[in-house]
Every structure is written in structure tokens, then in C-alpha cells.
């Protein structure tokens, strides 16, 4: 364990785990600690700076201020990755570029989206939400009427049950965080508690399930336990402060924090209270998993505790040895993130990462781990633990329970199975190039 010089009162900069992981408290104590850490490596590129000159954009009147602003043209590569860019007559997926984002909020234009039959062009003035079935009085709501209810806001991730499906491959696919894990995003959602609308309709205690249905061309429907509806479900009408994006359910969607993305029915038009699940197409087929040996899971619902490192990651190479902040996102469908452990030696030793607060339940938490890269090969991975004590499984444990694809997985667009929540490992070689490995 190496030690570095420290000022009186500054946090210890002891390595907390192998291969250069530094105590996370180094992040707390302002520049002193970082300076100490950098000084210790002695590899800061200290070449003399050029004399400063005024840049051209400082010497002319700038662009006009637009009504709707868009990112800088220099950020033109920060886009979603499309599975169906030519609009073939089939489903389409757009994946979030996590390796190019910071913080925890996914910008609306970059929120992932999956559409099984295109995005309906819904006139919000014509859209209706109906609640009926085992209720005292069937009711119809509009966007306008819902807007008069006491709205609540909360952070929540939405994750496709098939997110990270390429990780079921026996051989790690060499691709970005976006292609591996881009079917999860995190937003502040604002809407009406579903319990309030159900109470208004007067739900029959024998009604244990809801069939939630969208206004898209498949009238996509899923069965949802009434228990979840009364726990924390919303009819969401705002996403990060603005109306929902069309691909995220405009003008209203069901939000079931922590549950499979597909259950968060978009374009929601109908909720029927029933006494049994519908075994709809999507819960029967796509969102049900085959286990090794041939048994199958259904009504899985919960997206389990998970994390992945976004920086560094495949495609983001390290330019030189020195101090880096390993960073990524962690989340759990059952609660708050309690702890994220990071390893730089392929899981032989672990250090506890700093968590950026506030920590919301069923939402992204960003973790940061200071790391001094000495220029030698290193294997980085993260492991999250939630406040219910659920631990993100290591890959060997996970594969023992859930198995791997029999056939070679040749594209990250494939969905060999679902509900992958094991670890993701990045191997940094001596040149700073990052590869995807199974540690």
C-alpha cells in the first residue's frame, strides 16, 4: 500500500484497494487532496503553456438566441444509437449514450425509446384515459383534467427488461456502454398518483390486477398488480419539466418505478381493473425469461440492483498515466443505492466509491472513485448494493443461475435473454485502450 504526503487535516490518500484506487474522501477535501495525489504520481503533463490569445468567438457578436435551444454543434455525436435507422416495417430501439453523459438526469432528447409499431402522433386534446372494470363508476380523464390534480414529482429510472442483453453472450462484445446498457434512462417524472384516480373510480377489493393499455397501433397492454398501483405508480404527464417526448409516451404514460420498462405503458388510454392477469402478448412472450434447464419466469417485474462504469469505458481511452475519476451509475428497482464498490484489479480487491447525492429510491445514483493509473494493465468494475441489502451479482454467480446464450451473440442488438444485472468489466491495457472483458 503506497502512501503519499498529506497536509495536516487533509484526508488520507491511502490506497483503499489494489491497482491505485484511492480513498473516496480524497474527493471531499477540495484541491488539497487532489494536488497531493497528483504530486505523488509525478506524471502531470507540466509542459509550458502557450501565451493566451483572444479566441475568434470572443471578437464578434454571437448567434441569435433561439426559441428552442439545441446542443452545441460540437456535440453532434452525442446521439442515441438506432436499431432501425432506415425505418423498416418492424420495431425500433434508440439507446442512450451513457458514456457521453454526466450526472444522473437523462436529457429528454436522449432518453431511450423502444417502439414496437412506430410512435403514434397523438393530439393531446383528443386523447382520453379510461378507468373501468371492477370499479364503482367507470371514468374518463383528459390531459387537461389530469393537469388540475395535485401533481407529484419524483426521480425514476426506466429500464427495458432486455437492457444489457448482449452480456448473455459467452464472449464479451467489444462495444460501448451505449450499446450494452443504453436501454435504461433516468428522469424526473411529474404526474398524478394512480391511487388517487383508482379511488375516485372506487375500486372493488376483489380487483387485484390492472390491465394497462396504450393508444399505439398494437394497443400494447400489460397486467400490473393493484398493489404496485397503490405503492408508487403515477400517470406521468411531464418528463424533466416538459411534456413527455413522443417516444416516451406523449401525452401520458404509466410510471411504475423500478418495474420493467415495458410495463410503464406509454400513450396510456385505458386501465381495466380485473381479478386475474391477462397474459397479454408481451408478458407471455417477450418479457418472460427462459432459465437454464427450460423452466421459465413470468411476472418478474422488478429491475434488480445494478451498476456500470461509464468513465472510462469502451471507446474512451486514457491518454496518460495519472489521476482519474472512475465514474458510473447505479440503481435498484427496489430501493435506494446504499453502497457502490469499485475494483481496479478485476475484483481481487474493492474500494467504496463516493455517491453523489441526493440519493433517490428507484433512480440513478452516480458514483465516483478516485484512481491513480500507473500505466499498467488494470481491470475496472463496479458492484452496487441497495438499502434492502440486495447485492449486484458477480458474473460467475449470475451465469451459474441464469446461464449464457448457446448460440454466439454477434450483435448488441440481439436479445438472447433478459434481466441481466451482473457486473460490467473494462480492461485498460498499457496504452490506455479500454476493452470489454468478463472479470
Amino acid at each position: 500500500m503506497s502512501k503519499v504526503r498529506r497536509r495536516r487535516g487533509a484526508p488520507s490518500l491511502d490506497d483503499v484497494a489494489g491497482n491505485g484506487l484511492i480513498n473516496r474522501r480524497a474527493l471531499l477535501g477540495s484541491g488539497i487532496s487532489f494536488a497531493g495525489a497528483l504530486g505523488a504520481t509525478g506524471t502531470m503533463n507540466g509542459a509550458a503553456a502557450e501565451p493566451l490569445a483572444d479566441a475568434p468567438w470572443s471578437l464578434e457578436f454571437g448567434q441569435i438566441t433561439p426559441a428552442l435551444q439545441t446542443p452545441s454543434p460540437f456535440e453532434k455525436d452525442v446521439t442515441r444509437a438506432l436499431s432501425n435507422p432506415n425505418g423498416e416495417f418492424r420495431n425500433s430501439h434508440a439507446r442512450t449514450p451513457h458514456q457521453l453523459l454526466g450526472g444522473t438526469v437523462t436529457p429528454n432528447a436522449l432518453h431511450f425509446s423502444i417502439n414496437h409499431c412506430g410512435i403514434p402522433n397523438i393530439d393531446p386534446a383528443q386523447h382520453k384515459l379510461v378507468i373501468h372494470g371492477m370499479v364503482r363508476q367507470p371514468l374518463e380523464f383528459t390531459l387537461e383534467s389530469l393537469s388540475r390534480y395535485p401533481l407529484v414529482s419524483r426521480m425514476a429510472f426506466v429500464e427495458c427488461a432486455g437492457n444489457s442483453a448482449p452480456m448473455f453472450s459467452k464472449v464479451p462484445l467489444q462495444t460501448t456502454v451505449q450499446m450494452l446498457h443504453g436501454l435504461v434512462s433516468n428522469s424526473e417524472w411529474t404526474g398524478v398518483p394512480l391511487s388517487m384516480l383508482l379511488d375516485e373510480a372506487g375500486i372493488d377489493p376483489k380487483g387485484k390486477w390492472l390491465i394497462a393499455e396504450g393508444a399505439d397501433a398494437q394497443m400494447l397492454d400489460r397486467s400490473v398488480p393493484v398493489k404496485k398501483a397503490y405503492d408508487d405508480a403515477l400517470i406521468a404527464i411531464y418528463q424533466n419539466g416538459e411534456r413527455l417526448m413522443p417516444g416516451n409516451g406523449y401525452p401520458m404514460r404509466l410510471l411504475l418505478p423500478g418495474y420493467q420498462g415495458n410495463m410503464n405503458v406509454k400513450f396510456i388510454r385505458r386501465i381495466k381493473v380485473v381479478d386475474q392477469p391477462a397474459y397479454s402478448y408481451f408478458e407471455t412472450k417477450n418479457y418472460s425469461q427462459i432459465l437454464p434447464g427450460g423452466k421459465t419466469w413470468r411476472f418478474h417485474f422488478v429491475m434488480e440492483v445494478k451498476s456500470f462504469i461509464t468513465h472510462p469505458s469502451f471507446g474512451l481511452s486514457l491518454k496518460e498515466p495519472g489521476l482519474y475519476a472512475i465514474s458510473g451509475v447505479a440503481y435498484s428497482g427496489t430501493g435506494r443505492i446504499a453502497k457502490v464498490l469499485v475494483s481496479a484489479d478485476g475484483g481481487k480487491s474493492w474500494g467504496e466509491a463516493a455517491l453523489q447525492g441526493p440519493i433517490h429510491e428507484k433512480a440513478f445514483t452516480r458514483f465516483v472513485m478516485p484512481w491513480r493509473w500507473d500505466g499498467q494493465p488494470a481491470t475496472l468494475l463496479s458492484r452496487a448494493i441497495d438499502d434492502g441489502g440486495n447485492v449486484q451479482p458477480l458474473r460467475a454467480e449470475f451465469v451459474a443461475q441464469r446461464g449464457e446464450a448457446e448460440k454466439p451473440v454477434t450483435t448488441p442488438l440481439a436479445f438472447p435473454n433478459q434481466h441481466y444485472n451482473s457486473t460490467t468489466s473494462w480492461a485498460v491495457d498499457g496504452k490506455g485502450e479500454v476493452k470489454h472483458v468478463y472479470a
Partner: protein
Amino acid sequence: MCTRKTIAAATLALACSAGAALAQSPGLGKPLTDADIKQWDIAILPDGTNLPPGNGTPAQGAKIFAEKCSACHGNAAKGGVAPFYPALVGGQPLTSGIDTVKTIANYYAYPTTIFDYTRRAMPYNMPRSLTDNEVYALTAYILSLNSLIGENETMDATTLPNVKMPNRDNFIMPYPDRL
């Protein structure tokens, strides 16, 4: 005279009434009758609840399939048109691996799912355009192709829910406490 106890009681009463006020709904839902909802009320339950009147046979379904479905699902539902349009017949045993392609024969738990999904979503380019008789006939045809019913069986609201799918009892619920 205001004792500490009465203040506490008053505070509690205030807190309760404030809580009740917060939970109170503005009551803006517009009442509907079941007749108003009829066209939207399409979800079929596995016990057959909400199946409409009507019926169809595999032979009737074969003709409709050739006309309206085979362009995507292939001749006799064998697939092969494009990788993203599935075959509707056959399927490997689920012991073939966790990435086994899920099919009607090897996976579906209830036959009502076929009726429900075909009626709400097919044909892909003209959803909700099939009559209930056509949907019964197509469902009968697909079940017959998979040898799950006989070639001459008629499917209707009584017979369809009684078709037992091979994989029905092979499911496990990982979190039964969440229901």
C-alpha cells in the same frame, strides 16, 4: 382552559383533516357507461372472460392467413420472409438453451393470448381490421398448424379457453409477494 392534552388532540385533528384534504381527489373524472367503453374493451382474460360472440375453423383461417398474414409470416406460417417476422408454427424445446426462440407451441401459456393479440395488433399494417369471426378462424388455424387442436375443430368463446398449451405449467413467479 387549554390543557396540553387538548392542544395535542386539536393538533392531531388538524393534521388528520389536512391529510384527508391532501388525499381528496378533485373528482374530475367524467362518468362513463359500459356501452361507451365497448369498442375499447378488448382485453381477453385466460379463463375466456370477454371473448366475443363468433367462431371460426382452421380451414376458414387458412384462407384468411394466405390473404392477410403470409406476406410477413410466410407460407403456412413457416416464417422465412424476414428475420423480424416470426414463424408461427413449431419451436425447439426450451431445454435447448436460455436463448431458445419462444414460439406459440413451446412457450405460450394460454390460447387466449393468440386471439387477443391478433385482434388488437394484426395485421401489422391494419390493426383492428379483422372481424371477430376472422380472428377466431386465424386462431384456430394457428393452433391446428401446431397440432394443438384438430383440423376440424371450431374455436369460439367456449372451446378456445379449454385448449391446453404445452408450456402452461412451466412458469415460476420469482417475486410472488409483489402481487
